[in-house]
């Protein structure tokens, strides 16, 4: 393989490139195949149809809301997991990460029995006049549930990499814990927090199983883009492909624009010695 001048020794055996190329192809080929199947003459009308735009708008709104929820809930969780050792910490981490490996439909069932009308909390919520099932709130809950681990994992990693030396120095300089968090910890792990938020957003955008199980599917209320694609597929393959491409484009845009090369949580050279 041709190497650009000025690049250093990588230490990667040549056959690794071959397998890596196969891996890249394995990921790219299905996308290419999908693009090839797009009915381009109908593409614009298909993706600008009322139901498509409604679904896209709902997807973007709910994903933004669940990303915000992930930040609100995930930052404290990551801090607790990364900074203060306590009994049961491993267990807590395992449970927080569980949605990562759980089939989303299982998450949906679990949420149903928590927030549903007959659910653990749902009954009390229902008495208080709050109905979650079949509402946009249910979509946000489902998305937050599956996306939260992405934020926690990214941020905990960034926090651990950054270490707590800066926080210790800040404290000896007279900063109370709230100030340390606001002026030192969060700015230090901002890249990690940002990439965690982007991953959460992307995961929310693609959420399907938990939403279908827990929130239902109604245009403008709970039918997000993936649900719309799933439904369109029943009757109009062209529409499903067009919408899939739209979702891919949105996801690539979001991830590509904001998820840069993973950086350590701290500013590199210079800051440390």
């Amino acid at each position, binding site marked *: 393989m041709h190497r650009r001048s000025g690049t250093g020794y990588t230490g990667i055996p040549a056959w690794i490139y071959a397998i890596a190329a*196969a891996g890249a192809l*394995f990921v790219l*080929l*299905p996308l290419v195949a999908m693009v090839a199947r797009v009915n381009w003459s109908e593409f614009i009308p298909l993706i600008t149809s009322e139901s498509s735009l409604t679904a896209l708008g709902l997807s973007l709104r709910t994903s933004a809301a669940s990303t915000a929820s992930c930040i609100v809930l995930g930052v404290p969780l990551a801090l607790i997991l990364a900074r203060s050792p306590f009994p049961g910490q491993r267990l807590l981490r395992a449970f927080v990460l569980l949605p990562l490996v759980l089939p989303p439909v299982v998450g949906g069932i679990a949420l*149903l*029995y928590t927030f*549903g*009308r*007959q659910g653990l909390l749902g009954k009390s919520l229902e008495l208080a006049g709050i109905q979650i*099932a*079949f509402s946009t709130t249910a979509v946000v809950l489902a998305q937050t549930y599956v996306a939260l681990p992405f934020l926690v994992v990214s941020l905990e990693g960034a926090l651990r990499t950054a270490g707590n030396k800066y926080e210790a120095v800040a404290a000896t300089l007279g900063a109370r814990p709230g100030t340390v968090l606001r002026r030192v910890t969060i700015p230090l792990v901002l890249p990690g927090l940002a990439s965690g938020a982007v991953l959460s957003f992307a995961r929310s955008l693609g959420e*399907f199983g938990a939403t*279908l*199980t827990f*929130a*239902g*599917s*109604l*245009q403008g209320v*709970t*039918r997000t883009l*993936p*649900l719309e694609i*799933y*439904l*369109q*597929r*029943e*009757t*109009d*393959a062209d529409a499903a492909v067009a919408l899939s491409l739209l979702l891919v484009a949105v996801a690539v845009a979001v991830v590509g624009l904001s998820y840069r090369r993973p950086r350590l949580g701290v500013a590199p050279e210079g800051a440390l010695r």
Partner: protein
Amino acid sequence: MRTARKHVPALLAAGALAAGLAGCAAGTPGAAGTGSNSSAGASETPTLSGAITVYAAASLKSTFTKLASDFEAKNPGTKITLNFAGSSDLATQITQGAPADVFASADTKNMAKLTDAELIDGAPANFATNVLEIAVPPSNPASISSFADLAKPGVKVVVCAPQVPCGAAAETVEKATGTTLAPVSEESSVTDVLGKVTSGEADAGLVYVTDVKNAGDKVKGIRFAESDQAVNTYPIATVGTSKNKELAAAFIAAVTGSEGKTVLSDAGFGTP
């Protein structure tokens, strides 16, 4: 999405990814192992043997499972492999070259897709009908007793989306009766509708008679006269690329015959 996921273990088992992909694309017509038992040795008393794969609509799961095992017991040496999914999924898979010998659809529309594409041998036979029924939780919290009750304000009704057969049927009934429903959700499958009812999230759902029967005592079924307005017909046919059309025809005969009728009507299906 779902189909793709199902293929993953198979790919991994194949070991070489590229080979696996190629295999899938070609559709491996001989995969069912039926090649050697084609009609070549047409003798006067045909003893059935070999194996076929039957693609059947998800709503046929319990009836076809029983019919297939009865058939195998009656005809030793035969093997019926069943594959259940939504009719449109199955039709798409067969169009893409999936190794099906028999296709039993939950509606005439998806069968028509295959006959139009000339993938079907002969004319499909209609073997069952199905009509909508209201499914409510056993306690019937919203006190539903008629189709008109579903339109009452505050009643949480879940239906299928118009894009899928059960939703199209619901729409037909609505039109015919002049009742407009305001569903809280339009699901993409009967299973999802039923799930919302059994979990108590919804007060009522519109599903097929057979689905209510299949769900046992988890839901209560409420029949309504207007369901006649949308009768769903189930056709069955031999797929053109089948390597064992003899066995396929025999299985179709069993389904459309008296034993099939008994099993199907026990499950709530009507006769066409």
